[in-house]
């Protein structure tokens, strides 16, 4: 290691990164917090300090409450499903099944497609009556449903799309982890007559825990960050049944031009992400040290 008498070198090396990160991550985060205590300036009206007004507005804003609820349901729905599916896919692709390269390709493919492209295609799937999903369900005698136009089904429809899109991506991480598990373990278990399920439950799954944690954190971040499908498919409707928090921020900031309120909303989002970071660095770090 270089001795500390050369203090300039490391800071110089870090300069571009720190300037960029400060400019686009750290300072904006602080500024967002500060701006949430003001009112938005409009043309001839300057900004005014209003204390916690924006936050009390938020609490009585039914759209914000809907967004918060939707994000919670969305995360609870997509994260476990994505984890389970991606684990399953990794196990499949890692096994001796024939055509596994094709399977791997087909699972991973949604990852390389832009979400907006995918959303447009799924929009056609969800069309009532002659959209593919209704046509398929119609074969079994199901009635047509207005998947995206019914508040009961719209969020679920978006979640299915999100899971389809990300499961393949997470599969890769599980695949990497599975390939690190020594094959002698499974051979030994087979010799002792343990069933595959037993082996999975008692050996594989615990060994995959660090990956699961990593995938979980990433899936949760994605559930906050990815709103392309809301923009394309539902615009938050009907009646805000599919409004997600970041989408509301986007609307408030760039449609209603209410930057201060958008800042307050962003603070809530940041708080949720900060909590997540806390959990990750607290829990994950300890797990990593076990390796």
């Amino acid at each position, binding site marked *: 290691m270089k001795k500390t008498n050369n203090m300039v070198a490391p800071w110089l090396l870090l300069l571009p990164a720190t300037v960029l990160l400060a400019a686009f991550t*750290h300072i904006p985060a602080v500024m967002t917090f500060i701006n949430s205590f003001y009112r938005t300036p409009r043309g001839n009206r300057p900004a005014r300090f209003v204390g916690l007004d924006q936050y009390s507005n938020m609490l009585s804003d039914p759209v914000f409450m809907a967004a918060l609820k939707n994000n919670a349901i969305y995360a609870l729905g997509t994260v476990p499903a994505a984890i389970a599916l991606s684990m399953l896919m990794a196990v499949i692709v890692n096994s001796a099944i024939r055509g596994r390269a094709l399977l791997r390709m087909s699972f991973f493919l949604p990852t390389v497609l832009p979400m907006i492209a995918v959303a447009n295609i799924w929009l056609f799937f969800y069309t009532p009556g002659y959209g593919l999903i209704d046509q398929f369900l119609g074969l079994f005698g199901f009635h047509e449903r207005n998947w995206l136009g019914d508040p009961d089904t719209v969020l679920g429809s978006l979640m299915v799309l999100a899971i389809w899109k990300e499961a393949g991506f997470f599969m890769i991480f599980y*695949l990497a982890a599975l390939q*690190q598990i020594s094959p002698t373990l499974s051979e030994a278990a087979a010799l002792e007559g343990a069933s595959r399920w037993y082996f999975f439950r008692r050996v594989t799954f615990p060994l995959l825990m660090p990956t699961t944690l990593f995938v979980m954190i990433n899936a949760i971040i994605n559930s906050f960050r990815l709103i392309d499908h809301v923009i394309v498919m539902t615009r938050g409707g009907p009646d805000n049944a599919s409004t997600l928090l970041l989408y509301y921020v986007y609307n408030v900031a760039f449609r209603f031009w209410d930057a201060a309120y958008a800042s307050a909303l962003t603070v809530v989002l940041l708080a949720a992400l900060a909590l997540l970071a806390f959990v990750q660095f607290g829990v994950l770090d300890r797990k990593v040290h076990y390796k």
Partner: protein
Amino acid sequence: MSAMTLSHHTREASFWRVLEIGACYLLGLLWILPLFYAVWMAVHPPAYEVRFELFAPVTLQNFVDAWNAAPFARYFLNTFALITTILVCQFVVCTLAAYAFARYEFRGKTVVFMLVLIQLMIMPEVLMVENYRTISKLGLVDTVVAMGLPYMASAFGIFLLRQTFLTVPKELDDAARVEGAGPLAVLLKVYVPLARPIYVAYGLVSVSYHWNNLLWPLVITNSVTTRPLTVGLQVFASPDQGVQWSVISAATLMTSAPLLIGFLLFQRQFVQSFMRAGIK
């Protein structure tokens, strides 16, 4: 166990086995169905969007229509410009930073590293309100640079490269220094070449991410001359009148084509890259 019961078990087992394998294939098929459907819609005339006749006429007219309806050539150019700019800057910025973290000891190192890692959680689009204001003050609204700037210092890249640099043997470092090489020369001659597979991996991940990114470019661009493909597709696919599914499918395939084809051709590399990135 008698021979009879053993073979009975085997038959039962193989029945479930077949079912299982069938289910795996079904899952794979289900997963690729949307893409197949998009291709179907794109190569058939509008009347066949929802009719699945085997010998329906195949046509490329939808692609022609899509191409003419919006300046996709320009969008392609913009996207290429964007990912090139981002990739080059990311390589430079992240390499320098990773080197500092890997090979130097200095006061406040851990704190700075933690601050860097914050960006893993808090992506620039979450802070879009403030970032937009910053870009506006810099007078860079609606430029390719503005689309890339918030992403150039990538916490993921720094982390990845730091892990890699940490594994470079000290002897190589010392050997180069003995020959009189300064720190930057050591970086360029020793560390960077050894980390090549990681650069490839990171490059693929980054290209994938930014080719497909919508929200920040949507916020920060106004005009055809800077809009990338994703924003172009979004603007194109939202007329308030009846949409032609077939044309939109064609446009969708066009915008995804390069990555898709790249992926299909270099599947193994893609997967390995993501795996490598993931392991770290």
